[in-house]
């Protein structure tokens, strides 16, 4: 298997970081490490690196399940963030997918628009 490292443009990362600091850092922390037992980490987890659709849906609908992530559960609730624009969601998810040791392809505003239209 060959991993293609797709460079993400710097401007997107900078915009994404701004959104991260405003809306995400409180719970997921400066290093993406989350809070043990409370808020899930964003480092190399299947939620972050896996399906773009599922990840976009977490932003739009929030998350209130007690599922295990790498053997641990997390008790805080994530509120829906559907007030963010397609551009903001694309930027922040691209930032998260390429920070904290993560490498994954970018998410575009078009991806978000598509998922938003199909998410109730």
């Amino acid at each position, binding site marked *: 298997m060959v991993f293609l490292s797709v460079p993400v443009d710097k401007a997107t990362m900078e915009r994404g970081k701004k959104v991260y600091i405003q809306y995400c*850092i*409180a719970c997921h922390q400066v*290093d993406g*490490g989350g809070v043990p037992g409370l808020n899930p980490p964003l480092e190399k987890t299947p939620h972050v690196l896996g399906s773009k659709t599922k990840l976009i849906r977490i932003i739009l609908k929030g998350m209130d399940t007690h599922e295990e992530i790498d053997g641990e559960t997390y*008790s805080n*609730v994530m*509120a*829906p963030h559907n007030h963010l624009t397609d551009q903001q969601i694309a930027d922040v998810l691209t930032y998260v997918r390429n920070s904290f040791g993560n490498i994954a392809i970018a998410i575009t505003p078009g991806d978000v628009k598509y998922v938003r239209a199909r998410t109730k």
Partner: protein
Amino acid sequence: MTVLIINPVNDLLILQGNKKPSGVTENAGLKLPAGFSASVLADSVGRARHIVVTKKGALYIKLSKLINGKGILRVKDTDGDGKIDDIKSFGNYIGTGITIKDGYLYASSNDEVFRYALDENEEVIKPDSPEKIIKGLINGRQHNTKSLVLDDKGYIYVNIGSPLNSCQEIDRGAGSKGKDPCPVLDSAGGIWQFRADKLNQTYKEGIRYATGLRNVMGLDWNYQINELFVIQHGRDQLDMFPEYFNAKQNADIPAEEMFMIKKGANCGWPYCYFDVQQNKKVLAPEYGGDGKNTTRCEGVEQPIVAFPAHLAPNALLFYTGSMFPDKYKNGAFVAFHGSWNRSPEKQEGYYVVFVPFKDGKPSGPWEIFADGFAGVETVMSPKQAQHRPCGLAQGPDGALYVSDDVKGTIYKIIYKNN
């Protein structure tokens, strides 16, 4: 021994050196006042939450994650070498609360309370068949631990934390308004009183002893004045209302409040929080507050100590022993688990503090008693903390025990007058 700790924020290597050849860190890595010393009684015992010591010096430890299907450990140092050598486990449920009173061990899951009869050495007689005394308590995902304490009249007091941060229509949603009245308060967000000796009690048999408490993990009975004392985990995320609060204000303003509780007390949550800068209760932004408005907050219970925001008080213990110097007698120790909701500021807490008391009232400023649990100079993200204080207990000799729920370390702190 030299320990290398990697700080994941900036990949700095922090060198923690000491010259001791034994491989044992001095005072188990803790900073303590002069005359005190600490040792590690046990390590890697799992998610050690609250703890209690028997009159013979054995420890019961409540676990928030099962080990081999068991949620309570009973550990003892039988040969007196300072390390545990005798471990038993029982109880097939996770939880936090555990205490001993008048011949019984009481322990909680996140929705029930059990008790186990003890023999004359305070050893559990039938570990596999406890009496279920309370059941059916609210077990939301947040704040679901059920801390316990008993009085001398046969009552048990159980914290039932609110499953929400601030009772909003959308929990932790930016700008989301508070439900008014907050429906959660009927069954959570307070302290409930039950009989200690009646089986299968539910809300129907319980009394809501105090309300308006978001989540209490640390509570203790003060036998000097026969009253209940609690310490609340204050609210998070004031900056969900950016028109009034920025991240720095959220990091600094909403206190962790200690209360003396009388029956019927209302401590204000979710309508009011205590602002440490203005030194008063103010109306929460979810209920129309702007950081200054105090409507609805006159008449609610005032804290007897207001600690800095977000430190996460996980245990409270009135010290009644004779080992420590006089100033500690009848004063309160508080174990702070350490903050998470201070980003992008550095996190705070991760220590045990002492509050001097006289006649059941704080008699001076609080001070940090035991520090250094985190093992790093600065915690930017809670994950960096190597240890986090969670439970407190007093031994029959007056030693203070502190549990850590990250690595499962049990610290024993003693005082030697020399």
